[in-house]
Structures are given as structure tokens and as C-alpha cells.
């Protein structure tokens, strides 16, 4: 499982918001994208999912160009925000819908939901549960994240997964993602503003600024060092290029 990015750029109204020369992600990696607002994190994730058209360049998932192929969708799970939920369904109905589309049978779905039951605490999985739109933002976030993991996709893309979660859920999510990556040997790419969580969870961190990747560090055995360095950077960021 790998994703290759080559000469990728995205412009909006003549303004270049992303410009990545060459980049690759590999299985068993948990990659954290960090950067200030407007740095290009979400744009990069959207381009990786073919949700927006690149101005130039391409993204390949397992050697398939994502904008010209759809096979990669079968092994890719993603959650980019609550607009990707079907808010008039109940949580269980949404999971059943996603499972059905992904070809996950009832037994596997039950096993998956049972595995993540601790994290899903409070979302309500019974028939009397409220609709997704009636849940808190944090609980909606949990549902979207777990839906992205249903069927054990080999690539998982998450935009700001820690946002809106209470502290306990944030810690549960970290252990859940760590366990998921080990169990499925998958690739997880996530963006976050929380440097501590990124340093704690990820094996690699990328710092984006002005649409460019200005740092790409391995965190293995260097968590403290990289975290300190990132904190120093964000405390006094360089002027945008």
C-alpha cells in the first residue's frame, strides 16, 4: 500500500494554495500533517481523495492515478468533516449503509462496532438513538471516524480527527488508530492542529506552510525532539513564502 504524489499543485482564482513536488506515503505509517490555517492540509487530503481537481500533477494510490481510476476507493476510508455524514440517519443506520456499500457483512459490522464500542460510547447505537443531526459535534465526529474504518480499509484519511472530541475520546482515538495501524498494516494520513497528539501518535510528521511542505520528519524515537522543534516553529513562524 503506497501513495505517490508528483508535481501536484492546486490553484484557486490564480492563487496557488498547494504545491508539492514529490511525496510518498507507505503502509504501516501514520502520517500527521500540521500547519496553520490555509497551509494546504485539507486541500492535500482532498486531492488525495479526488474530491477536487488538481491544477497540475497527479496522485497515485497503489500505482493508480486517483483522478482516472476508482479501484482505490475500495481500500480507502476517509472522514473529512460532518458534511460527509448522512445526518438524517441514526448512527447504526449510517454504519449499516456504509457497511453495505463497502461489502461488509452483518457479522463483520457487529464485530467492528463491538471493537470500537468504547470510543462510540455516548453516540447511541440502539434503535431509539437520536438521528445523527441530533448528536453533539463530538459524537458526530466519532461516527464519521468509525465509519471510515469499517471494512478495515488499507488507507485511511482523516481531517482533524481530534477536533470536537472530549479529552477521553481523544486518548481513546489515539490508541484506537495505533491499534488499527498495527492490526491492518494500513496507511493512515491525518491532519491536526494538536502537536502533542501528532507527536504521540504519528510515525512521521509533515509541516505545511503556504501550500508547501517545509519539513518532513520521522518521529520514531525522536518524538520529544520533533515536538520541541515544532513548538518553537509555531511560536515564531517564518513569514509565508
Amino acid at each position, binding site marked *: 500500500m503506497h501513495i505517490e504524489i508528483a508535481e501536484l499543485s492546486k490553484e484557486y482564482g490564480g492563487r496557488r494554495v498547494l504545491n508539492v513536488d514529490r511525496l510518498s506515503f507507505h503502509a504501516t505509517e501514520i502520517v500527521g500533517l500540521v500547519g496553520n490555517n490555509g497551509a494546504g492540509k485539507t486541500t492535500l487530503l482532498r486531492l488525495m481523495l479526488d474530491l*477536487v*481537481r488538481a491544477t497540475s500533477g497527479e496522485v497515485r494510490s497503489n500505482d493508480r492515478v486517483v483522478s482516472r481510476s476508482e479501484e482505490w476507493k475500495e481500500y480507502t476510508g476517509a472522514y473529512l468533516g460532518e458534511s460527509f455524514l448522512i445526518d438524517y*440517519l441514526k448512527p447504526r443506520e449510517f454504519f449499516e449503509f456504509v457497511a453495505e456499500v463497502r461489502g461488509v457483512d452483518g457479522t463483520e459490522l457487529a464485530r467492528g462496532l463491538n471493537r470500537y464500542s468504547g470510543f462510540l460510547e455516548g453516540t447511541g447505537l440502539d434503535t431509539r438513538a437520536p438521528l445523527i443531526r441530533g448528536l453533539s459535534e463530538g459524537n458526530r465526529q466519532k461516527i464519521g471516524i468509525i465509519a471510515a474504518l469499517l471494512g478495515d480499509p488499507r488507507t485511511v484519511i482523516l481531517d482533524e480527527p481530534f477536533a470536537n472530541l472530549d479529552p477521553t475520546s481523544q486518548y481513546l482515538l489515539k490508541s484506537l488508530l495505533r491499534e488499527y495501524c498495527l492490526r491492518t498494516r494500513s496507511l493512515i494520513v491525518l491532519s491536526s492542529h494538536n502537536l502533542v497528539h501528532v507527536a504521540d501518535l504519528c510515525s512521521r510528521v509533515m509541516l505545511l506552510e503556504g501550500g508547501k511542505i517545509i519539513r518532513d520528519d520521522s518521529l520514531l524515537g525522536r518524538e520529544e525532539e520533533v515536538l520541541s522543534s515544532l513548538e518553537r516553529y509555531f511560536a515564531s513562524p517564518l513569514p509565508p513564502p
Partner: protein
Amino acid sequence: MISTGRLVVLEVSLLWKRYVRNVVSPAARVLRPTLWLLQAFAVVNCLAIGYFLEPILRIFLPQCDGVSLVEAHLGQVFLAFCVLRLFLEKPPSLIVRPMLVLPVAKTMIIGLHGIRMSLTAIPLGLLLGGVAFWYRSILSSSTVTGSSFWLVGFVALHHLFVVLGIPLRLLASDFSRAVAVSSVILVLTLVVPTMDMLGTASQQLAVLFFRLRHGDAIALAICGLALFGSIPGVAFLVKGSLNIDTH
């Protein structure tokens, strides 16, 4: 990838849940009952005029043009109905977005969206077509071809209105503004007599649609324009379905 048949079954199930759970904006929660009242009003009025008032007028006041009365009335109801529907539609990209991160082919997403839009148009077509057919003094002699023009025209116009509704929804995204706008529309279309501009426009619309049953050149032109007008709308929907670029 999921099979087309299975996805269609899932889609129908979603549509049904969406319908029964009344997925609408806060503004539409007020507008939806208004819409139902308007429909009931239209049916009752057309039945009353068609079955009772017009024959009575024909006997006692032969100089009164009952047909024109109903034409104008239908036009007003139709206009109000379409305008009110603008607020009840979600932007297409919001509906298709969950599908975009699931293993569903883009062509299927587009196809399903077409089906979804058609399904939402059917009740509108049935209602207006049904009202028209009930009105025996206007459509008792209509042909199948003429009636088809009615329905096709309404469905095409519906698509057009839905597309027009997206920017309008943005303008009236605020609850109180939406209620204010809809109230003004209701007053203009139902209370202000046909001499005002909106009334005249709706009357003209009704007259043109009335001609549809005859299959004449104007009727064809209107149908053609409605269909032509829906082409950029459909293109917009497709673009909205595939490109959720909101940067």
C-alpha cells in the same frame, strides 16, 4: 464496487428515510406546512371553481370568463408552489458528499442524483397535472400528447427552479429572512390581485401552460425553453456532485 441494483435499493431506502424524517432547514420547517396548505388550497379551489363556480357563473353571469379566472389562479398557485420549493432543497453537493468517500463510481453518483431529482419532481408533476385534469372545463378535451407536454414542462421547470433556488437559498439562509421572503411571496401571489406585475406574469404563465394542451407552437417553445433551461442546471448539478471544492 457495489452493484448498481444494490445501490439503487439503498438510495430508495435513503430517500424514504429523508422524506419521512423531514430533512429540511429550520426555515423550511415553517415553509413546508405552508406548502401543504397551499396545495390543499389549490385543489379545493380548482375543484370548487371547476365543478361549482364556473357552471354557476356560466348560467347566471355568462359574460364572466371563468376559464380565465382559473388560468390565473392556477398560474399563481404554480408560481407560489415553485418558489416555496426553492427553500426545501438541499444543495446537491451536500446530498452526494457522503457517497464521494465510499466505493461508488462517479457515474453511479451522477445517475442516482438524476433519479433522486426526478423522484422529487414527480409529486410536483402529479399534483399540478392532477389539479389540471380535475378541472374538467379546461382539460376535458385534452389529448394525451397535450397532457404530456404539461407534465414534461413542469418536471423540467422544477429542475430549473431547484437550480435557481441554490443561490436564493444562500440569500435566505437566515431563518427570519426566509420566513419574510416566503411571506412576501405568498402575499404577492395569493392576495394581491392579478393586476400587479407578479400576478400578470403568473397569469401569462398559466395562459401559456393552458396552451400546452393544444400542442401549438407556443406550447412547444415553452417546453423547449424549459428543457433547454434545465440543461445548464443539470450540468451545474453534475459539477456540484463531483466537485465539492469549497476552498
